[in-house]
């Protein structure tokens, strides 16, 4: 076996350019696979983080009637007893904080253009205990009162607004009367959640109470729960709390992180099909390359095969010889692929991909925004290595068998 390996090793590098081309193809394919996997995993992780930290929290509670009409953000379906609901939720295990919110439809005007927006009225301090919005604010978060407004950075840019500018927010009061007031832009949010950067509008309850005549009307309650080490545990916690809320308050609808997260992951599954297709195509190309390299090696060395057979090498040894050659290409190609993958992975993990700059501001419908970072996934390195070597061996099998079937006399006479 040692002799066969030495012969195979020498043969592989005898046609260096051909072998290098095959290895480069494999390295590119496997590296791309690892990089793509890293980006998609990063997108999933960021998307789930966005749900729990920026948009929906661990559990979001509103009345069942409100949830049915959620698309229109009605102000006539308030929480009947927000304080009682919050007390119950805070008494449950692993709950850290709750915050009340009221969503409403408004029209934001810079005096030249007016855009319809879905705005959120909130208690700035309570909200910051549940969601991480203030961490993404350039300028300052709401202080409460004083006609302050925080806008998504992209929305503000669309309206040509900057920090310190004044903007008019018009909306219908809870009694359906038109109202409008001027607000000073104190903060701009550029978060990893595109909907917040693109259309986020946040005002304090103090100002919204006047604008919308809320009189304490709150439409939803959001909840922060303890951070868990695994996604499954976080989902289980939120599912259990949502079930407890709906059991205690049958007229309520509690949407758990589990519910929202599972819907998100279902969508993410569709994305993983694309990565499977990429690796299939790349491995097909690499496989054809390896088969071609080994086959060319067989034809170039037919007389050599005849000599080896004449020295008494068994046809099985000939098969092994060429399989080892394929295996060497596979191992070296896989190793190169892992190196390329590691490089791409490290780039995405440390530097990230600035989505807006790359897409030129075009909305590609991605579930995340800002800079997308990759996710370290050692399992996929093992998968890539195994796939690379297996593809190389399978591709070499046919040419190796062909070589082993050559008649000694014919092989020796071959010119």
């Amino acid at each position: 076996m040692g002799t066969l390996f030495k012969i195979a090793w020498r043969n592989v590098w005898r046609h260096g350019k051909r072998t290098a081309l095959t290895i480069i193809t494999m390295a590119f394919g496997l590296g791309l696979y690892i990089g793509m996997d890293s980006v998609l995993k990063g997108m999933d992780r960021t998307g789930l983080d966005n749900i729990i930290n920026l948009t929906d929290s661990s559990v979001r509670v509103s009345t069942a009637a409100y949830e049915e009409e959620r698309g229109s953000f009605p102000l006539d379906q308030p929480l009947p007893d927000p304080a009682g609901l919050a007390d119950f939720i805070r008494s449950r295990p692993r709950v850290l904080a709750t915050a009340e919110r009221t969503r409403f439809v408004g029209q934001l005007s810079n005096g030249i253009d007016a855009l319809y927006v879905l705005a959120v009225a909130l208690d700035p301090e309570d909200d910051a205990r549940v969601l991480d919005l203030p961490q993404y604010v350039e300028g300052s978060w709401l202080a409460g009162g004083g006609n302050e407004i925080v806008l998504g950075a992209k929305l503000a840019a669309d309206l040509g607004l900057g920090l310190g500018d004044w903007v008019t927010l018009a909306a219908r009061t809870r009694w359906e009367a038109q109202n409008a007031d001027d607000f000073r832009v104190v903060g701009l949010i550029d978060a990893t959640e595109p909907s917040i950067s693109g259309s986020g509008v946040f005002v304090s309850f103090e100002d919204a109470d006047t604008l919308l005549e809320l009189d304490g009307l709150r439409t939803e309650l959001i909840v922060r729960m303890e951070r868990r080490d695994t996604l499954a545990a976080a989902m289980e916690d939120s599912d259990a709390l949502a079930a407890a809320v709906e059991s205690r308050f049958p007229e309520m609808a509690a949407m758990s992180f589990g519910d929202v997260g599972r819907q998100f992951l279902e969508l993410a599954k569709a994305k993983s099909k694309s990565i499977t297709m990429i690796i299939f195509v790349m491995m097909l190309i690499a496989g054809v390359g390896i088969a071609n390299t080994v086959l060319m090696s067989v034809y170039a060395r037919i007389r050599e095969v005849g000599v080896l057979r004449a020295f008494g090498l068994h046809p099985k040894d000939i098969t092994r010889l060429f399989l080892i050659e394929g295996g060497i290409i596979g191992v070296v190609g896989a190793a190169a692929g892992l190196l390329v993958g590691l490089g791409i992975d490290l780039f995405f993990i440390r530097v990230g991909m600035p989505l807006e700059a790359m897409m030129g501001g075009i909305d590609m419908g991605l579930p995340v925004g800002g800079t997308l970072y990759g996710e370290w996934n050692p399992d996929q390195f093992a998968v890539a290595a195994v796939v690379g070597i297996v593809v190389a061996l399978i591709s070499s099998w046919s040419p190796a068998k062909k070589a082993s079937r050559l008649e000694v006399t014919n092989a020796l006479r071959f010119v």
Partner: protein
Amino acid sequence: MRKTIQATLVAGIFAAALAAQEALPELAGDEIMRRVDANLAAGSIAYSGVMEIDLGHRTLRKEMRVVAQGQDRSFVEFVNPEDEGVRYLKIGDELWMYFPEEGDTVKISGHLLKEGMMGSDLSYEDTLESGALTDKYDITVSGTEELDGRPCYVLELSAKVRDVSYERQKFWVDGQRFVVLKSEMYAKSGKLLKESRVLAVKAFGKRWYPVTVMMKDLLKKGGGTVFTMTDVRFDVSLPDDMFSLRRLGR
């Protein structure tokens, strides 16, 4: 001599304006609005309409045929090439829209109601306003003014119920024709949100009716939306199913 002529001219203009104002009899706000409503009220009405929406950088033109019965029922079908076949049906405070390409009927509800109708300065909610203003507003006459050469009553409308679109409105009513020539709609905060101007009024028998109206959403720049009615016919006979979902989707 020149000063005398100038003084005479100024005095003449003031006198004419004063005469025009003084020519208006003293009427209560409710009575003025009752006469305005009488002008507008019709068993049924049919007309062709053109809506020109000035977006600032371009102007959209929408053509339509409209049939209405009282204030609560109307049926609109767009006939301009871009929107041909799009229909609206309003019954009371409900509004449906029919999309011919999809063959689909959609009820306009929720935040869609707040958006401008076909991109205009008129929101869907504005079109759903119904009921007598005297039931919803305390109407007082704050004075008389001349507007576009017409003597007008200036009315202040202050909401007496909570479920009205505008807390306060101001009307300039032609004191002889009893047509609202100008109106201003204010937010609860006092901010002026919308303004409408009647650009043309036409007599139909004893009835004066506004046939060209400009509506402007003051939250945005642009020339506003000008709506022109032609081929106006009153008290037309309508089929029984004129205001039905079946006809909307036919």
